[in-house]
């Protein structure tokens, strides 16, 4: 999983990557949208199947590190079906607010239904938005989280700058994302799993091997731990650090706006 650490930019000469393919930058958004339109209905069950339920623990760890309290304003960006939103909604309580934001209306719709079924209505707002250009006021949120969303964004630098803008001074960003396994043995097993087993599971459970092929490829193309930390620093975040989870299969990056 070698990364070009000298250049962090996702877009070069108007081109970017969509999994292993090189595509025109303006095409990527629509292609990603197609993937998530296609997986939305089965997204939650596939998450449990693919990760053997471990994604729940990664998300819990994110919540534990978020420092959320009652009354806070939280943005769950690229929040999809709202797993983090559900937890934040209970933590911030009736005096706080959680915005579940995603670029994809199908994912938001599944999320809205799920959260309503869980009786979570009063302090959640749903906003369809592109992370690169957030429609929120400056200095609005105490916490922004982005779980498994950043690698799908066309221009990550723009997204980080946009997040920085909407965070309150003192606020924090948490990025939970697939990353680079720290042991080569684990990397090999993980590669075999993601390139061979994952698309087959996608085919079996969601009848959609292609989307899960994209998932595996997009994970490979995502910046490694250090590169992402550097990108966050360049966007203005302070005290940036990260924690490897499950041997670096996933990493949680944290940064503050002071």
């Amino acid at each position, binding site marked *: 999983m070698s990364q070009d650490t000298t250049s962090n930019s996702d877009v070069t000469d108007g081109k970017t990557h969509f999994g292993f393919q090189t595509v025109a930058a303006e095409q990527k958004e629509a292609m990603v949208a197609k993937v998530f339109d296609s997986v939305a209905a089965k997204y939650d069950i596939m998450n449990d199947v693919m990760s053997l339920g471990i994604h729940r623990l990664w998300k*819990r760890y994110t919540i*534990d590190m978020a420092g959320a*309290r*009652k009354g806070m304003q939280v943005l769950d960006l690229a929040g999809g079906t709202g797993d983090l939103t559900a*937890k934040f909604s*209970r933590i911030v309580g009736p005096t706080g607010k959680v915005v579940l934001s995603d670029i994809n209306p199908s994912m938001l719709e599944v999320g809205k239904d799920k959260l309503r079924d869980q*009786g979570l209505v009063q302090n959640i707002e749903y906003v369809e938005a592109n992370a690169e250009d957030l429609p929120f006021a400056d200095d609005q949120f105490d916490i922004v989280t982005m779980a498994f969303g950043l690698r799908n964004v066309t221009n990550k630098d723009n997204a980080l700058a946009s997040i920085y803008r909407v965070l309150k001074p003192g606020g924090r960003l948490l990025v939970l994302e697939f990353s680079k396994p720290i042991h080569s043995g684990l990397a090999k097993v993980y590669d075999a799993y993601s390139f061979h087993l994952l698309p087959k599971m996608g085919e079996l459970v969601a009848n959609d091997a292609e989307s899960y092929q994209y998932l595996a490829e997009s994970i490979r193309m995502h910046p490694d731990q250090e590169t992402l930390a550097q990108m966050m620093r360049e966007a203005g975040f302070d005290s940036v650090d990260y924690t490897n989870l499950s041997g670096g299969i996933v990493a949680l990056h944290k940064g503050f706006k002071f």
Partner: protein
Amino acid sequence: MLWRQCLAECLSLGTNHVLNLEPEQRIAFSALSGTSLQVVLLPVEFPIALYFSDKAIDIQLPPEPLVDDAVDCTVKVALSALDKIRDTSQLTALIKADKLDIQGDLSVLQKLSSAMQQVSFSWESLLIPLLGESFTAQLLNFHEARFAEFKQSVEAVQITLAEGLVEEKKLIAPAIFVADYCDEVSQLRVDTDRFQARLKRFEQQRETNGE
């Protein structure tokens, strides 16, 4: 590394599963909806955060105690007094004995105490919807018998070992291991006694229900 999160997920799933099986029990917690409470177990300072909503209770085990204003109410309680906070009439006595400290909205703890008093968890109520009445009864009977056998075997092993230790002085284990072993066996005894008492209670309940 993720053991806290794993434990919290299991606790949340288990609690909500039980509450969903018995809607009256969920109703008992409805007054708590929208509130949050942190229990910090002393002296180890182990925090358990409970977040209540209409349909579920989310349990988090943060790495360190949350600041007091992160939740509506923070209860610091000695492990030995944990069982007693169910009874609101004992709270003052516990505070005076330095076994309990409450910060924030006391009414949240009172609501939780009264909800806990209304909740009567039983293995039967959990198993009957899953396994059916007669199979549950058989299973509980079977377990009762197994527990009795298990307890006897533990006692037999304990006696044999104690005799062996006296006779085979050369092979004797360091005193600390023996003490540890005895502690574990006593704990096991306490646990089996508790299980047996519980099973007896289920048995009696079944009888009074006329089955």
